[in-house]
């Protein structure tokens, strides 16, 4: 017997995930524009690994392949992970990270909708803890005019680990702007001196600030399409801005501007694409704000005082752990039981 309601609005999980991926396109385009096409290689690599792992896990768990492979969730995880690791990372790193993300943090928990941790961030955390050195070699933007590898040379490095004669990896890559900032501050330079270094552009790292802007544009698209609500990005960026702002006001020589933090590292990507993963974020409005504020403050603390250059991933993961409790404690009052109002 078929049970009411008999009509449904036509939308689907696959459609939602697809729109999120669509929103990543501006950021990816700018990435390619400023840093070259190597990122496309890791995106492809991660996508293929994700689909293969997803299919294998579904098979092992005796679940149907078609509906789950077409929900696009594995692809989205793959893209987010690929965007958060260096494009020149060797191929096996991408594969290990993606496979771990999909197999362990998603399917061991029951697959789509059941995972506690953000799979992409688990993949990232595993990589940065297991292979910290590889995770620090980022591409230099074209604008710096340094030595650049051709696409073929990049491919040969990614897959064979071979660089052209006479070149070291350090010569063709650099640390991220956040990482550089941290190292230089340790060496005793002031924020002002560091900002004058050639790798920095208007607000943050040259090139990378534009990529962050691209992600922000994608985020606005998601907001307009009601795929995500304003709570998470706004609370996250707000908290990050406020914390960074306080430190910057107190001591501008040692703490960079809040805008620098906005446009560095994974802040924008995180605010609009990572924190907003519905499965691993709270469901109530109040809960979302607590979650995002916590993540924002933690991101700043790890960036400014912690051992890792960027805190986005760990902040997200820590707040993921808190989600069940946040949800339980922020249950909104239901119809007619609000009390006091009447």
């Amino acid at each position: 017997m078929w049970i009411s309601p008999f009509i449904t609005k036509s939308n689907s999980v696959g459609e939602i995930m697809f729109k999120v991926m669509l929103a990543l396109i501006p950021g990816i385009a700018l990435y390619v524009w400023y840093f070259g096409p190597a990122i496309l290689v890791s995106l492809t690599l991660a996508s293929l690994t994700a689909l293969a792992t997803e299919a294998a896990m579904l098979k092992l768990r005796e679940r149907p392949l078609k509906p789950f492979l077409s929900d696009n969730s594995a692809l989205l995880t793959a893209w987010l992970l690929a965007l958060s690791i260096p494009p020149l990372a060797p191929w096996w790193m991408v594969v290990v990270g993606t496979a771990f993300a999909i197999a362990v943090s998603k399917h061991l928990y029951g697959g789509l909708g059941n995972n506690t941790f953000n799979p992409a961030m688990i993949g990232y955390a595993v990589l940065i803890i297991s292979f910290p050195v590889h995770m620090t070699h980022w591409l230099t933007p074209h604008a710096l005019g340094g030595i650049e590898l051709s696409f073929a040379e990049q491919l040969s490095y990614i897959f064979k680990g071979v660089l052209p004669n006479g070149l070291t990896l350090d010569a063709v890559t650099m640390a991220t702007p956040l990482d550089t900032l941290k190292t230089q501050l340790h060496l005793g330079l002031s924020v002002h001196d560091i900002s004058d270094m050639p790798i920095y552009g208007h607000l943050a790292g040259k090139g990378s600030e534009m990529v962050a802007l691209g992600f922000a544009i994608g985020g606005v698209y998601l907001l307009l399409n009601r795929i995500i609500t304003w709570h998470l990005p706004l609370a996250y960026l707000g908290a990050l801005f406020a914390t960074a702002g306080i430190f910057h006001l107190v001591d501008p020589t040692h703490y960079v501007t809040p805008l620098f933090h906005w446009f560095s590292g994974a802040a924008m990507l995180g605010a609009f694409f990572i924190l907003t993963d519905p499965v691993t974020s709270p469901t109530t409005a109040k809960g979302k704000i607590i979650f995002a504020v916590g993540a924002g403050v933690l991101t700043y603390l790890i960036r400014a005082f912690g051992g890792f250059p960027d805190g986005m991933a760990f902040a997200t993961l820590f707040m993921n752990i808190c989600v069940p409790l946040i949800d339980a404690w922020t249950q909104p009052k239901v119809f007619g039981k609000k009390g006091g109002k009447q």
Partner: protein
Amino acid sequence: MIAALLVMIGIAVFLGAVLGFSAIKFKVQGNPLVEKIDAVLPQTQCGQCGFPGCKPYAEALAKGEADINKCPPGGEEGIHKLADLLGKEFIPFGEGAPPKAKSVAFIDESTCIGCTLCIQACPVDAIVGAAKQMHTIIASECTGCELCLAPCPVDCISMLPIAEDITNWKWRYPVFPIQATI
């Protein structure tokens, strides 16, 4: 050496005193857990657990003398509840004790000889009748424990599974078509 001994003895005496005092101060009377366990049990009083009734089983559980999977009328859910209450792991039913469909006893009144043996066996007084008169079962109070079946000398009692009708019908667990493999 002496110092070490003295120190250890000192500590021991002091702690002994504290514990002795608190043993008196925080003495616990009775076991309030029994009531909680008893509330979870289905009260069929069927004795299938090996104890004469639900309360004795609850007492045994509270003392940790019985397993939590000895109550077929409670079903698997009963085991889950007991596991939750007692902080134990769920254990499935052992051999020969799968829960049956809920049913009530029914007396075939044409064969009943009015011996009253079943009345004496019924743990909840759900059978009415007198000597030499046929007996009948108050269906609404029968717990389906089957204790009346054995004593009946003419085997006139049978267990009727409770049929589903519009008054006791329940919504089914929604099928989740996606879980079927293709």
